[in-house]
């Protein structure tokens, strides 16, 4: 039991940090541009596939650097030549633009790399068990993932709190118009923020690619969870996104490792009900309902705290 708790906590924090790598970019973009980037998870996928392709040509370490830069450049281009054009048509048009983009990116990835998972392997340098707890070998690559996300988290925190750019971004979170009035090139800041945000998502993609499955549906699977994170945390709240990322990461990881069900708790259902829908509910394990846990959490949050955990702004 203790083993389960330790391992699940480690995995949960890891998944939560990965989610936060994406949710942070999404939140900052939303706060500044007012648009929720539906294609954010698609940049995560692009990061994974670019990482796969570049690591085939040059190895994993160059890929870790180049793939996010590439995805970030594409992201900046999308903002400069796409979103900025659509901006005058309102937020719905912007959201729909990113929705169409997510659709198109998935199709393009399918065309180039196919529908089946690609063979994106852990680099040999990190392919060993880091430590053994209670007879379970914990892979070094997962520790590396955790390290990368914590380092980026710290860098992001320092940039936001200590540098001039961070100051402007922070100001733009609450008073975007005032920042413009103060004479900053808002257009360029927007492009930069969008580029950095998508690059962060791509970093998450590159490091998650070898550990999880790199497939053309990975954006579609992760995207909705990402939006749950930002809504649960409170739209536009960076600390909220952090809390919600960890929460959902832990909830999902713990749920996956639990095997309990109603039949386990209260004994098997009487045979009279064996063919009814009640049998489904009775027999389903917590592990099986793990995928819907984030959405249940979303509905609960909406009922009891519609603004989100740490949200203040109503949109």
């Amino acid at each position: 039991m203790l083993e389960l708790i330790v391992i699940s906590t480690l995995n949960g924090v890891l998944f939560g940090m990965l989610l936060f790598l994406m949710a942070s970019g999404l939140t900052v973009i939303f706060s500044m541009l007012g648009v929720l980037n539906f294609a954010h998870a698609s940049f995560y996928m692009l990061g994974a596939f670019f990482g796969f392709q570049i690591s085939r040509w040059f190895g994993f370490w160059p890929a870790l650097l180049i793939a996010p830069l590439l995805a970030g450049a594409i992201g900046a281009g999308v903002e400069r030549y796409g979103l900025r054009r659509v901006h005058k048509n309102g937020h719905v048009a912007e959201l729909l633009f990113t929705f169409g983009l997510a659709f198109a990116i998935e199709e393009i990835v399918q065309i180039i790399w196919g529908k089946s998972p690609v063979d994106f392997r852990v680099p040999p340098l990190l392919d060993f068990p880091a430590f053994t707890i209670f007879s379970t070998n914990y892979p070094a690559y997962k520790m590396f993932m955790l390290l990368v996300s914590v380092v980026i988290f710290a860098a992001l925190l320092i940039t936001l709190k200590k540098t001039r750019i961070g100051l402007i971004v922070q100001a733009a979170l609450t008073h975007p118009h005032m920042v413009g009035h103060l004479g900053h090139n808002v257009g360029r800041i927007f492009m930069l923020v969008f580029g950095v945000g998508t690059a962060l998502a791509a970093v998450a993609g590159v490091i998650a690619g070898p550990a999880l499955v790199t497939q053309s549906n990975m954006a579609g699977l992760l995207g909705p969870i990402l939006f749950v994170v930002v809504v649960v945390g409170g739209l536009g709240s960076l600390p909220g996104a952090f809390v919600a990322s960890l929460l959902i990461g832990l909830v999902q990881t713990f749920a996956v490792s639990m095997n309990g069900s109603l039949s386990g708790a209260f004994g098997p259902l009487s045979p009279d009900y064996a063919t009814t829908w009640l049998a489904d509910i009775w027999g389903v394990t917590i592990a099986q309902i793990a995928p819907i846990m984030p959405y249940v959490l979303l509905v609960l949050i909406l009922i009891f705290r519609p603004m989100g955990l740490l949200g203040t702004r109503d949109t």
Partner: protein
Amino acid sequence: MSDLIASAAPPYPAAAEKFKFYGLWIAAAIALLVLPKLFGSGGSLTTFSLIGISIIFSLSYNILLGQTGMLSFGHAVYYGLGGFLVIHAINIIGINKLPIPLPVVPLIGGLTGLLFAVLLGWVSTQRSGTAFAMISLGVAELIASSALILRTFFGGEAGISANRTKLLRVFDWSFGPQIQIYYLVAAWTLIAVVAMYALTRTPLGRMCNAVRDNPERVQFVGYDPHVVRYLAFCFSGFFAGIAGALAAINFEIANSAYLGAAQSGTVLFATYIGGVGFFIGPIVGAIFVTFLSLGLSDLTPVWQLYFGLIFIAVVVFAPGGITGLLMMHRPLLKAGTLTKVLPSYLIAFVPTLAMITGLILAIEVTVHYTVNPGDDSHIKAFGVNFDAASPYIWAMAAILMIGGFLVARKTWTWVGHAWDEATSMTREQGIAA
């Protein structure tokens, strides 16, 4: 005081306008009746049925997006649940020999959609705008994932099927042949379209528009925007359920794809491409998108990519959709200044077409090398044969794309000038443009 009343209330419609209004509906009904006489083949009847279902679904979606300003990414939930309940209802009615004929069964789907909209809508519509969009997505994922867990009811991956011909027969219609299903769909389409049009003319419909345009002022007037959004959501769920029921009757099966994100995306595409600003927009969009998805899938293997690109192009260049684009020209037509812009359209059309052709060529050649690299390089796309390995094709694609883009950009600024000129002339004539 009497002046105020006279200006606030619209004038009572003249007999000619009334005739025009009702004539339009009667003409639509006659067109639906005559259509299978003109195109009677099985394939076209199926297409017409699909279009009818898509029209109801898109219009129900537009109650949210166009009328109330709520962008939903999970509208297929109500469509799919309507479909599932109807399949179960048909099975139950068939086994127990209940005296319920098939034509009223879609109502069960509608009520199912309504029930779930009532249940889920209150939470979903608490917030508007971006938050609503995300919430609708989350709720849709919740329902779609739960459908895979509750296997007995939703039938897992395979879905559940029913036999629609086993029900009580009225006028000896078995609803086996597609022509009878077509008439069933057509009748329900007409009823639903009339009902949804009527809804836009009610005070509730007007309040929905007000909530879309300025929720804060709606609150000042004494309405709760949340309640208005909720009511719109319930109506929308009801009609979506009817559409899902008709789809389930048409295919005699309901599976988890009915509830999925792809279905929600398709209805969003259809509605937006058609145009959300006008009542007729989603109808145009439903027809266009159904033909497009049937036609394109024959022409090229990557039709979904083109579909996405068309959607992006509409969002960027024509946010009013197809109908918005056409309706823009109505004041010009009235003022007779349309001839000012038409020549510039023709000029701009040529390089734009060249650019699109180049893009298609580039996509198809790329697709050949990535999807099936080992195959013969002589490929056929859009009915045209060409050699994907030939450098001439590559060069042609590049020249068409880049050259077309440069020239098109120039010609579209001309179109802009011609447009400005034409609209200012229209304004001088006193017609609002």
